[in-house]
């Protein structure tokens, strides 16, 4: 009886591990396919469509060389980096200040103001009124149209405020007795002990901005200001070769198929490199966010 059960148990464990392995593979496979295609032989790749987990010989790095020469990819990359850095900075400044003030028990109107801000999580004007606001502010075709509307989120405030509340007030009291003002307390006392929360918010905001394309697609007509994702959309979704033709003289069809994959890799790799290192912080952020949010 005892042996039989452990046999069943062992079978279960093996099947379970196997199924998880398959699931992991399915999650990984599309990116492996992209990676394999990006260094395949361009002529064969254009001919033999379908799924490739291994690059087609002779391996070629022509695609990556070509990507480096495209002006629009460089422009998109630089713009995206700008939007991510500026957007994360704006978000962190507004969120930490708001979270600090709204987590002080000596700040009397904290609950009223928190309610005022939290209401925006339940109800918002929606697409068209937000669009018209940007139009009326004269921000169409301005980089500010990408940065400002998303510079502050009530959701992140809830996460940050919860984490600030957990910091013992005694820490703050002693600093106040030494004559520190609120900005100094926030900077020297609160922020240094909240690094994990800052990391979570930075990651969430940075990933969202890196991958964001919709706001840019409705607000920016000037290609010089486009983030990388908009160029990607042109190439992958609209199937337009416009951004691929600006860099080099009429590239061959085969070359363009190859280049598509290289651009996906170039645009995706930065994020895929960062998230495994910040994984341990997710749990904290998600727990606070979904329960209290």
């Amino acid at each position, binding site marked *: 009886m005892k042996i039989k059960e452990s046999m069943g148990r062992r079978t279960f464990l093996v099947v*379970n591990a196997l199924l998880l392995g398959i699931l992991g593979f399915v999650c990984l496979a599309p990116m492996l396919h992209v990676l394999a295609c990006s260094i395949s032989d361009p002529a064969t790749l254009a001919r033999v469509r379908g799924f490739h987990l291994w690059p087609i010989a002779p391996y070629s790095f022509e695609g990556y060389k070509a990507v480096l020469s495209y002006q629009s990819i460089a422009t998109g990359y630089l713009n995206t980096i700008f939007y991510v850095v500026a957007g994360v900075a704006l978000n962190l400044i507004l969120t930490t200040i708001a979270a600090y003030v709204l987590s002080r028990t000596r700040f009397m109107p904290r609950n009223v103001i928190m309610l005022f801000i939290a209401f*925006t999580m339940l109800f918002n004007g929606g697409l068209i009124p937000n669009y018209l606001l940007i*139009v009326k502010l004269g921000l169409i075709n301005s980089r500010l149209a990408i940065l*400002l509307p998303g510079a502050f989120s009530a959701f992140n405030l809830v996460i940050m405020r919860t984490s600030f509340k957990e910091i013992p007030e005694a820490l703050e009291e002693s600093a106040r007795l030494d004559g520190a003002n609120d900005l100094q307390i926030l900077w020297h006392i609160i922020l240094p002990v909240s690094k994990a929360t800052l990391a979570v918010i930075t990651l969430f905001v940075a990933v969202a901005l890196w991958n964001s394309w919709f706001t840019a697609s409705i607000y920016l007509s000037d290609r010089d200001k486009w983030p990388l994702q908009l160029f990607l959309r042109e190439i992958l979704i609209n199937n337009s070769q416009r951004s691929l033709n600006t860099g080099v003289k009429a590239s061959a069809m085969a070359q363009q198929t190859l280049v598509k994959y290289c651009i996906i890799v170039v*645009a995706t790799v930065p994020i895929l490199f960062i998230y495994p290192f910040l*994984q341990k912080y997710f749990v904290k952020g998600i727990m606070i966010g979904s329960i209290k949010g």
Partner: protein
Amino acid sequence: MKRKQLIANYRSNKLLYWMILPVILFVILFNYVPMFGLTMAFQDYSLVKGIFGSKWVGFENFADFFSSMYFVRTFRNTIVLSLLDLLFSFPAPIFLALMLNEVKSLRYKKLVQTVSYMPHFISMIVVAGLIIEFTNSSGVIAQLATAMGGTAKSYISLPQYFRPIFITSEVWQHIGFNSIIYLAALSGISEELYEAAKIDGAGRFRQLLNVTLPGIMPTIIIMFILRCGAIMNLNFEKVLLLYSPSTYETADIITTYVYRIGIIKQKIGYSTAVGLFNSVVSFLLVIGANKLSKTYTETSMF
């Protein structure tokens, strides 16, 4: 009295008040001004005349929407797509978490977790691009179909395949990431409960039914209620990238319709009304879900 207290509070905490002021102004400008802009739903809005000069038309925009063919189509598609998504995307991460919880090797568990989070971080554009590549007439799905004796089709441009494609990719994108919260709940179940169950002679399956599931049930209920409140908030960007006039019949949802009619065709008053309809239904669902949560789990969002 209250006012005096507030003034006294301001006097002793001036800096706090000045620090929060810009945030409040920011929220007013970027959140409350657009809410005020919803009044355009009741106007024959003209960009030149603005909100204060445009003609008021009462509920005419709403009446136009409800009597058009678009109302039935977009409302039906929103609800059907969302409920299908709920049916498949909701339980999937729970199963994944339960399976991961049984893995003895911590390294293997961590590896599967890390890999399964990956799709969540890939941009919507890339995901949509890959979906289109895999489901077009020369893609891998068509090749599989041909190998099994079928005919290759361009699945992404056929209305009957839109929903399966959308749902499958939603599960793929979020199964790993959404399992995090259940894994956290699972790790919170006390080892003693399992020991006690073992002493009572409960096998593995009984332990799952009597210890594990009750242990994560509060989390499941909360997540389920939150998800119900979000029924109107489908992944609008993904639909926008994947649909085309040939699949509107099953793919066009309220928010994509608002986008086409408002941003592309610039019918501002009408599209605001359609958007407002979506927001109001969504708001009522959130309130209702919260009420349910309060009644059954003693947990609520507000």
